[in-house]
């Protein structure tokens, strides 16, 4: 027994070693790309954040000075505040609307109408955010569609340049995000609802529950995973938003719609202060992780 098992065990070990090698070989291309395009630039970003550097010339080590500036500059802090306000429009409204729409579509008979409504709702998702920003800035203009419609229904008194008004600029920009993201939320939640056992719905109906009861007892818990994914994606979209704002208001009027993405872009590429831009970028990443990771944890533990 021992005579025969020893070499066999050796062969198994060799085979497993070979397996490990093959595994690494298969992993290598992806790993190289990951290290080359994610880890190394990230490390360089951290490194730059400790320097005063214009991106080309001589760099001077400044320690944590750039970070100190991020946390003391009122303009930069206000832009972080605006990004958190955008969560209302990028996350709460689209996910909320998506939930309602998805359960409404589910209760519709499958047919042309439900397919068309899904397609229509998803349509904004295929439009690039930058293009959506430009198109909406026309609609929000003093002579744009929104004010024309208000005029037709006798609410001409409410008409204003929506993106140039200090009170409405941020909500107006946020609603562009809601418009784009609602489709994605609806379609993903609809897929999630399709996976919920129909017998559960039948059971709760037999127990005499109405739409609300059904929604809160069956639909909502059944969609926890999808909601977690959507909240994660949309919160990241809100906190790191750039394109909609850049094409619609560029942070104005004043600094009413200034978000970290725009600040970082300006500091890094217009002011050529690569160190401060990197530091702000790292801070933004930490904030995003601090918000998103608890959401992930919540979706797992509270079932």
């Amino acid at each position, binding site marked *: 027994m021992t005579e025969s098992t020893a070499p066999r065990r050796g062969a198994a070990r060799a085979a497993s070693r070979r397996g490990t090698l093959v595994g690494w070989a298969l992993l290598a291309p992806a790993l190289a790309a990951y290290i080359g395009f*994610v*880890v*190394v630039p*990230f*490390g*360089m*970003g*951290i*490194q*730059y954040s*400790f*320097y005063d*550097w*214009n*991106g*080309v*010339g*001589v*760099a*001077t*080590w400044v320690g944590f000075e750039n970070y100190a500036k991020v946390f003391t500059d009122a303009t930069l802090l206000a832009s972080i505040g605006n990004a958190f306000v955008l969560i209302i429009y990028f996350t709460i409204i689209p996910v909320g609307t998506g939930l309602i729409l998805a359960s409404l579509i589910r209760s519709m008979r499958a047919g042309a109408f439900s397919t068309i409504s899904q397609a229509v709702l998803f349509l904004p998702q295929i439009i690039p955010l930058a293009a959506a920003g430009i198109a909406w*800035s026309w609609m*929000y*203009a*003093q002579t744009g569609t929104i004010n024309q419609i208000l005029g037709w229904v006798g609410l001409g008194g409410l008409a*204003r*340049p929506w993106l*140039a008004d*200090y009170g409405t600029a941020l909500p107006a920009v946020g609603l562009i995000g809601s418009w784009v993201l609602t489709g994605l939320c609806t379609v993903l939640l609809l897929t999630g609802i399709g996976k*919920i*056992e129909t017998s559960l719905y039948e059971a709760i109906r037999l127990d005499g529950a109405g739409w609300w009861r059904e929604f809160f007892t069956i639909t909502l*818990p*059944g969609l*926890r*995973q999808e909601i*977690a994914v959507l909240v994660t994606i949309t919160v990241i979209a809100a906190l790191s938003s750039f394109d909609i704002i850049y094409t619609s208001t*560029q*942070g*104005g*009027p*004043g*600094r009413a719609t*200034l978000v970290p993405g725009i600040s970082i872009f*300006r*500091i890094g*590429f*217009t*002011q*050529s*202060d*690569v160190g401060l831009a990197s530091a702000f970028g790292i801070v933004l990443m930490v904030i995003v*992780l601090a918000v*998103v*990771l608890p959401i*992930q*944890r919540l*979706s*797992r*533990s509270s*079932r």
Partner: protein
Amino acid sequence: MAIHTPRGRRGIRLATGLVATAAITGLALTGCAPGTSAPTETTNADVSTELTTEEVNLVIADETGFPVTDKLAEEFTKQHPNITFTINRDTFQNLTANAPKLLASSTPPDLIRLPTIGDTVKDGLLANLDPYYDAYGWDAWPASQLAPLRMSEDGIRGSGSLYQLGLGYSITGIFMNLELADQLGIDAPPQTMAELEEDLATAKAAGVLPIMAGDKDGVVNFVVQAAMNQYADKDEFMSWMFNEPGATYNTPGNVEGAELIRKWADAGYFPSDINAIDYFTFTSRFSEGEGLFTFNGNWAAADYQKALGDDVTFFLVPPINEGDGHVAMGAANSFSVAAKSAHLDEIVYFLNWIHTDPTARQIIVDVTGASPGGDPSLPLPEVESGSLIEKALEMSAQIGAENGQVDFMANTTAGIYAGSIIPESQLLVTSKITGEEFVERVQAFYESEVG
């Protein structure tokens, strides 16, 4: 039901791993600082003013919507078939953001549109044109026109070596819609600031928009600075724009000018949706007949003329007291030569040709409406008599004679326009801040950037 997956914990572990790896990579890299070492001075001892007979292709990096380089290159190749051009275009914003990286690359463009010199001289990216200045005899050109294109070794603009030249030298002023003026009983351009204010009040009282301006992208600052120019000490203002040590934006004159803008904002002289109006919108709305006045530069003259025909005129912003000298913003459409250009002699020959060749000077005027610059004793290109472009050339000459040209404050530092002047002026023209606050905030940003 939902399937339990440890996604959350994996997410945390992944993130921690990522941060750790990156931190280690970062620490490993901190041994060597990013960027290059201090630049070595590039000197070109033996410059030639003779054009080569070899085949040479020159590369120009220019902004979109600036067709004059195409026309000039075409004409130059016609005169000198051995020289051809490749012109790469990008939007103004992208080009200015990428300029240092383009210049630092191993294959830089020979000539690049560069509105602000910034750190490029300090980093050794631009060719010093001083040897050519002597060789071509550019000392005959107006010194005040070239001053903003110079930079000293300490990074102060206005003096030192020559690093840029202009493809046309612009001038700003006020365009007036003559049809509206006629209706309002205004028969001539105002000669003083007080007369200008009277005209504004007349227009407002008659329900005509007094000033067509926009500030989504900051163009209202043509108006803001026009007001400041009249109150401020010109040299003091310029020393700030040239970043001289100790220079400040917070001067009584600048505050007075900014307060005047606040007064005009309170009086409703600007469009109510001013912060939603960008450059394109405000020029087209004035072209469509909206607004008695608009503050803009010679580059807009041809389009306004096309749209409004004879119903528009162009004049310099009036001084406070009648007969005082005029002060107006003007700047070169500045281009720089890359220090690493392999064809220094050829590209500078091209630049000199633009300022001296009659056809080239005619192209500058016809395409940009700007003054061609160069030796003032050279004949001026021909323009249609009575046209706005003719007015613009006269205004350029007058400002030259009165020595009243100042740079645009937007060119003070690379980041000040987007980072401070635009957002603060948006607040000023909608009466959210006072003129004094405007000046203080812009100065605070300036200090944080210049340090």
